[in-house]
């Protein structure tokens, strides 16, 4: 008899874990709170570092899970451990049983308005990286009106003691450079600046993207944080920053400012997480058993974790974790 595996979350991690579990002969069930699978990545236009269409990747993932039982617009409202595994009550009134639970609940995007000094939600031309990605998909955003001067702020809500997030969000640096290049393609005459603390180009092809950003797209990368944003009489943005390489304060007037918002743990899962006895780590994400040999295990038997619920991760890292969690679950079920 095939065993049910309850997968909470239908983003990249959840879909990929389900795909692999099905290949291993188990019966994954995906429970997704929103009205569609795909999570954050489905809202993206192109992926770094090589500008692949996100849609192509997500479409393949959709195809892979088309035969897998999926609940949309559904949340787990209660979950209890029993002799056979877990009993989950869903928000649609149904209940399902599973031998194991995979938490693939992803992340929340940092709310940019919490960094009040950047003026998101107050000054019209301050937008988020997610909103810019939507513009790339739709070419519609009244705020993006042939900007002549564009700024990107890295580490919004990351590596920032003031907001309580001291961790690096890992993907924002590369995303900023990708988006900066794309803006130059859409608006070739625009001057584009990025304001960074360190550029963390850790993955394959990332450093190449960094060089390409400067050599081919003439994007100016300024090492320094933006400290204040305001608006002038014409509705243009006046920013203050520090250029730490020159050791000088800097003021600049921009037409558009893009905030590279960090990842934070998806807090909508807190109640279920508590019921399952999963603690948070020092960054506020879910704690796994061991960062080397138990990264997919939680400290609770039968409960597994994958993707950005434990820390910020890139899409390849997330997919890699989703595949490895499938193996962990398979071994767990077969050795039980």
């Amino acid at each position, binding site marked *: 008899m095939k065993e049910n595996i309850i997968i909470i979350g239908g983003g990249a991690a959840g879909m990929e874990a389900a795909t692999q579990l099905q290949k291993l002969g188990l019966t994954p069930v995906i429970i997704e709170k929103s009205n569609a699978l795909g999570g954050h990545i489905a809202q993206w236009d192109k992926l770094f570092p090589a500008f692949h269409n996100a849609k192509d990747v997500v479409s393949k993932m959709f195809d892979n899970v088309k035969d897998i039982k999926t609940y949309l617009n559904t949340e787990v409202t209660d979950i209890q451990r029993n002799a056979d595994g877990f009993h989950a009550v869903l928000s649609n009134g149904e209940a399902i049983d599973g031998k194991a639970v995979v938490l693939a609940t992803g992340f929340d995007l940092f709310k940019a308005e919490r960094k009040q000094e950047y003026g998101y*939600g107050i000054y019209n031309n301050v937008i988020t990286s997610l909103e810019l990605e939507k513009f790339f998909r739709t070419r519609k955003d009244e705020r993006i009106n042939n900007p002549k001067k564009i700024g990107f702020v890295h580490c919004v809500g990351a590596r920032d003691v003031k907001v309580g997030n001291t961790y690096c969000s890992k993907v924002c640096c590369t995303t900023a450079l990708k988006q900066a290049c794309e803006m130059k393609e859409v608006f070739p005459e625009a001057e584009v600046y990025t304001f960074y603390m360190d550029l963390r180009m850790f993955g394959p092809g990332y450093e190449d993207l960094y060089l390409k950003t400067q050599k081919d797209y003439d994007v100016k990368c300024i090492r320094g944080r933006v400290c204040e944003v305001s608006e002038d009489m014409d509705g243009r943005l006046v920013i203050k920053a520090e250029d730490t390489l020159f050791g000088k304060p800097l003021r600049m007037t921009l037409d558009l400012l893009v905030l590279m918002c960090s990842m934070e743990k998806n807090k909508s899962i807190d109640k279920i997480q508590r019921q399952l006895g999963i603690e948070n780590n020092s960054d506020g994400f879910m704690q796994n058993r061991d960062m080397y040999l138990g990264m997919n295990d939680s400290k609770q038997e039968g409960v597994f974790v994958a993707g950005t619920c434990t820390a910020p991760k890139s899409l390849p890292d997330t997919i890699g974790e989703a595949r490895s969690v499938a193996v962990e679950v398979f071994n767990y079920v077969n050795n039980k």
Partner: protein
Amino acid sequence: MIIEGKQKIWADYQKDIPDDHYFYVRSCIRQAFWPGSEVTFLDITRNKLGKDFYENPYHTTCGGIAYHSDTIPQETAMTIIARQFALMKESGYENYVCSCITSFGCYTETLETWHEYPELEAKIRQYLWDSCKKEFAKPKYLAHASDIIYKFRFEIAKQMKFPLVNVKTGKPLKVVEHIGCHYSKMFPSKGFGGAEYPHVLVGMIEAWGGEVVDYPERRHCCGFGFRQYFVQGNRGYSESNTYKKFESMEPYEPDLIITNCPGCPYFLDRWQYVIAEQTGKTYGKNGYGIPALTYEEVAGLVMGYDPWDLGLQMHQVAIEPLLEKMGIPYDPKKKYQGVNGKDLGQPQCPSCIKSV
């Protein structure tokens, strides 16, 4: 500008302020700079609003200037503050309100530090006992005096005689608000509206009929900044900060600047004279400057106090154009008269900025 965004922040940073019964402490420098302001505050709260605001004649400076100039250690500043709190306790009060923004910052910092490090509070108790034989109680509530005027801004509006409106055009006066750095930049939750978009003065301006000017250098320091001015060699830096602000606000053509700090109105007022002497440039119309007033002075003006009783002749920038815009009657002959009409003599007029 998306005003709803600011309104959300304003709603997030509100404080519950007690209605009545406050122990009031003055500012050491405001009494010299703007002697009418604190008197007006007490008159408005006591006699116009019917509240109990008590002053103990034995209270002193909070030590803030010495502390921020690095001439006394924090323990000394805390012991001075502890003595103020002891006077409050002896006077039978639990709500503490201070006139000075730097004092507000020092009191807040002290209370927060004692909260985090109770052993330091115990040490200061001992210092106070050893030095003064006094015991203190921490205030149940700490407010800045501008918080009080903000709280009662609508009651003041009900008694208003001269709103912040240009009587000739019928349009709201354009008002720049300038918040003292120590109001909420250190502890955003302690100020109405938080640190980035404080509401404490905006609320007064809007309640009294004015229109708020938001300009790029709104958040910039006035130029006081303690060591920017106290160290003589740094004074050019002080002036350059003020200059930067005026250059930034100039295109908006403000009629008035309202402040809630002892130093800000002083530097925003006096440096206008210096800039005019150095460059020939003035920021008001027709050779005048832009008046930089305290919130008590503005409250007094809208409520119909005599401008000279408010001490507005103490400002370098002439106040008369503003009085005429607001339709406030004044007697030019009384501008430099003291008690019983005694002639105090007129100050020397500057050459590049109009004084009358």
